[in-house]
């Protein structure tokens, strides 16, 4: 594996490879309906989606919806991240708390947000807060579990070092637990971000709070297949962008981590 990059051409940059991957995906999306593998009525070729997207992009409504979605997503994810990280470190760091919380966490985690929709609506009506509740509820568990596993991963020698120098609990968290858990938190962020986006869209779709999801619902019930997929593509692209950002953040904050440092050419 080593010895390869030496003397040979440089590997292609990551972003270019990513674009190649996406291009391949787009090609499949174009060809599958064109080749008649599925009916064009139900899965139109990519070019149709693209023209529908272009039409959408011309309307202020679309941008407004995108903005609403992003806002709801960002708020929900931030709340979930903050709560997940803080509680995760607390619960993971204090065995007593961990023992007390486990069964409750396991009970609550599998309750689907969709089942909570009537309750959310009951509390907050059909506006953004209902969806926000769903987003926070769903994304929170993702982050929490990752943090719990991350906290468990602290190297015993590092922990002992911190203890022997009598670091305060807060310092231990800041200097030992947090850096160790960070790769897990990053994964938690990436998982949580997607789940938050999914729930934001689903919430808008079902509850009807403003955003892209509502547009998707309208397109669905109107039988406007290409428009619907155009919107879905936007949602997917949001996911891609979020990941790019997360990866960039990871490269900055995890420079010391084996996963990053071995990849520096």
């Amino acid at each position: 594996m080593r010895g390869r990059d030496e003397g040979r051409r440089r590997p292609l940059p990551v972003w270019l490879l990513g674009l190649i991957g996406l291009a391949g995906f787009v090609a499949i999306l174009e060809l599958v309906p064109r080749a008649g593998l599925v009916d064009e009525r139900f899965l139109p070729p990519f070019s149709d989606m693209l023209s529908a997207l272009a039409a959408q992009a011309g309307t202020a409504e679309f941008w407004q919806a995108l903005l609403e979605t992003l806002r709801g997503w960002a708020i929900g994810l931030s709340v979930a991240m903050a709560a997940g990280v803080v509680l995760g470190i607390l619960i993971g760091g204090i065995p007593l708390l961990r023992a007390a919380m486990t069964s409750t966490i396991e009970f609550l985690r599998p309750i689907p947000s969709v089942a909570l929709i009537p309750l959310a609506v009951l509390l907050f009506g059909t506006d953004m807060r209902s969806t926000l509740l769903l987003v926070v509820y769903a994304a929170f568990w993702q982050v929490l579990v990752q943090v719990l596993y991350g906290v468990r991963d602290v190297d015993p020698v590092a922990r002992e070092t911190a203890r022997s120098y009598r670091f305060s609990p807060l310092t231990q968290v800041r200097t030992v637990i947090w850096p160790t858990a960070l790769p897990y938190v990053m994964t938690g962020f990436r998982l949580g971000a997607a789940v938050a986006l999914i729930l934001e869209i689903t919430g808008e779709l079902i509850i009807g709070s403003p955003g892209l999801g509502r547009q998707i619902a309208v397109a669905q019930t109107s039988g406007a297949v290409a428009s619907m997929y155009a919107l879905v593509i936007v949602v997917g692209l949001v996911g891609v962008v979020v990941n790019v950002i997360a990866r960039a953040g990871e490269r900055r904050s995890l420079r010391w981590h084996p996963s990053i440092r071995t990849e520096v050419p």
Partner: protein
Amino acid sequence: MTTTPIGATALLDVRDLRKVYSGGSRSVEAVRNLTFSIAPGELVCIVGPSGAGKTTLLRCVAGLLNSTAGEVVLDGEKVTGPPRGMAVVFQEYGRSLFPWMTVRQNVELPLKEKKVPKAERRRLVEQALEAVGLADVHNAHPWQLSGGMQQRVAIARAVAYEPHILLMDEPFAAVDAQTRADLEDLVRTLWRRLGVTVLFVTHDIDESVYLGQRVIVLSNSPTVVLEEVAVDLPDDRDQLTTRSLPRFAELRAHVYELIQRAKRGDRPAG
């Protein structure tokens, strides 16, 4: 040939210490019965066969490990957690450095915790890194350093901390002979300057005799104290003259013989 601590009252008292590791199917009696004490400001070396329980002992003294029986009393108080003003150099030096921090940050962190003012902190860190010969790598991360350099960072961290009690677990295992000699002198200088009490685990018999006021030789596992050897060499030591003293050679031979006996499984009669 048991010696009592030199000072009037003991700083550290290890009484009937016993430690059994019991994890799952395996249960190992690492330390059977250890009793010794150390006076304030003493420099004591501990030698013993590999796997004797030296690290275990050190962990118990540091309050990082609960003993199965017996107790460790420091400054008149039973040790239940890491005491104030203690620094430890771990045998697993590599893992005791935080990979997410630079060398400087690693050394500086305990000082920050101790609330040492910034300027003073700066001075201490620089001095310590200088003393271990790493002044030029303070911005590197630990994993960018060689094994010996990592170990020296761990030493620098302990030195900069200016502890009252210093526990070192084979701290010079990974450095070359010359650096080792320099570091030995560093420890002695520090010890004399600050009056710090030092508990020093080593495998190098010469080193134990050169450094210590007393050498505690442990038996093999399950461990008891095989013998305490008082090092009656003059307090002013230097690498050339001290090591060439006939008494040095005698002590060295004695300790070596004890280690050989320990490895053969000899145990004290009592």
